[in-house]
């Protein structure tokens, strides 16, 4: 496990931050909530909720329509949010930022446009063994449609991709490589920059699923040289229903539109319809305007906290929780990569993860129990499911202690 260099970093004032999250004062089953489920969905700070409420109360209308001051104002807020995403990802142009409903829709968009355009019968799509279903199923659907094949980059028992296999796996039939930046089950931070460089050396474009990465580490799509980078707002302290597809402008320009309708056209006649340039041609219909503005506000919030400070805090919690949980007899941690983000999956001998999840819930501890939409990862590690704790910038060491004591109580009960 590596830790970012945090020398000279002012630590986060976690107690002050917690005041921004009304949910954290809730009580379940007589116990104060301990929210260790940010990998499922991050909590929104009051700042984000209020920004969205203000839009709905005072500024609500549609965007890119009409000449009213109200509409222009909404368009400005909405496009300002796009610019915030551009800056957050280090993209060269806001035209490379496409709004989607989330990571899943972003990947489907790429599969159904770029994928359909480039993948032919007999071609190959290369995915990593630790992909979320969102980066598996859209490619399987495309492969089935085109008569193409899915190939898989294997991983070792620690949950690290075996990059030595890349030279063999990337062939002249490979049309795209899809890889998750941070595994939602194992916490592994994949060396995507290296993977991209090696794919590019053979002319293969790369899509990076950044859903679990953007809340934890600074992403620079130009430095990574990613062709596509996708994430969801709600994992980044923003609302559900909004996500982002970053694509290199040349690729987006070459891609056909996806959904047809209003907002994505330049002109429509019965004879011929022409489309807007990217990103407009991918954004048919009225978008989730409040959600986009909310995501912009969430980016402001985490940027103000500082991703380097967030990463330092979360790494400390992860190291502490790893040490405490690993010391429990019969408990096995899945995902022991050297480079990990704050996701901690585990199984306990004789206790099904769903029982563990229910018993932790009884102690007010909110975790995820299940297959985490990554069934091939479960199969790889020979488990039906895992219990997963995930840490955010508002979590504390005391909350890790509560998790550990709740796990011990469950083990005692099942003795």
């Amino acid at each position, binding site marked *: 496990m590596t830790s970012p260099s945090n020398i000279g970093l002012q630590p986060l004032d976690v107690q002050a931050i917690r005041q921004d999250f009304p949910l954290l004062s809730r009580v379940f*089953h007589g116990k104060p909530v301990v929210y260790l489920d940010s990998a499922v969905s991050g909590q929104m700070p009051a700042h984000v909720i209020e920004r969205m409420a203000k839009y709905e109360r005072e500024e609500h209308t549609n965007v890119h329509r009409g000449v009213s001051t109200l509409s222009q104002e909404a368009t400005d807020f909405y496009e300002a949010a796009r610019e915030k995403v551009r800056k957050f990802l280090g993209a060269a142009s806001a035209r490379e930022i496409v709004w989607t409903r989330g990571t899943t829709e972003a990947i489907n968009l790429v599969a159904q446009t770029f994928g359909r355009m480039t993948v032919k019968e007999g071609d190959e799509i290369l995915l990593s063994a630790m992909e979320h279903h969102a980066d598996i199923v859209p490619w399987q659907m495309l492969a089935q449609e085109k008569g193409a094949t899915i190939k898989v980059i294997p991983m070792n028992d620690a949950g690290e991709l075996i990059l030595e296999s890349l030279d063999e796996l990337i062939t002249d039939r490979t049309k795209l490589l899809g890889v998750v930046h941070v595994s939602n089950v194992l916490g592994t931070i994949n060396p995507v920059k290296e993977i991209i460089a090696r794919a590019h050396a053979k002319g293969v474009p790369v899509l990076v699923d950044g859903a679990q990465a953007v809340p934890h580490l600074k992403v620079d799509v130009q430095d990574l040289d990613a062709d596509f980078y996708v994430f969801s707002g709600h994992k980044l302290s923003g609302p559900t229903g909004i996500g982002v597809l970053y694509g290199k402008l040349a690729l987006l320009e070459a891609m056909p539109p996806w959904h047809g309708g209003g907002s994505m056209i330049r002109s429509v006649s019965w004879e011929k319809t022409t489309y807007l340039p990217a990103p407009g041609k991918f954004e048919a219909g009225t978008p989730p305007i409040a959600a986009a503005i909310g995501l912009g506000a969430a980016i402001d919030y985490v940027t103000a906290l500082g991703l380097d400070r967030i990463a330092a805090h979360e790494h400390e919690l992860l190291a502490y929780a790893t040490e405490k949980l690993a010391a429990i007899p019969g408990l096995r941690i899945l995902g022991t990569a050297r480079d990990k983000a704050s996701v901690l999956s585990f199984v306990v001998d004789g206790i099904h993860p769903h029982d563990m999840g229910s018993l932790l819930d009884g102690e007010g501890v909110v975790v995820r129990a299940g297959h985490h939409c990554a069934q091939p990862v479960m199969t790889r590690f020979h488990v*039906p499911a895992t219990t997963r704790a995930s840490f955010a910038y508002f979590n504390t060491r005391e909350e890790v202690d509560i998790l550990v004591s709740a796990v011990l109580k469950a083990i005692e009960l099942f003795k």
Partner: protein
Amino acid sequence: MTDPRELYQQVILEHNKKPRNFGKLAPCTHHAEGHNPLCGDQLDLTLVVEDGVVRDVKFEGSGCAIDVASASLMTGAIKGRPVAEAEAMIDQFRGMVRGELDPATQTPLLGKLTLFQGVKDIPSRVKCAILPWATLHAALKGEEEASTE
């Protein structure tokens, strides 16, 4: 909202640890596999039914404590019963864990299986408790597979 911890009563924990009627009947007259895709629980149920009576029943598989204890208690409860009664128990158990039947008055055949009544307040666990019963239903109907999805 029921405290989930209340589900894990001693009887359930004990049946999870030492499930009764665990194994496989060969030959058998009825067989079905149950599967809960959400959590990977799976169950293989074999029965010997003669003259309309469940003479013997065994189960194999892996799952959470609620699922395993439900299967263990179910197999014990239906052994020796007429098929018609076992089918009535399926309806009563399903009704109870879905909160449609009151275990105090409306599930007379269930006996200690009313232990599972707390599941009704935890929808995410209802499928775990039901899986053995759905599998039994499939087996008695001559279907090979049951799924809680």
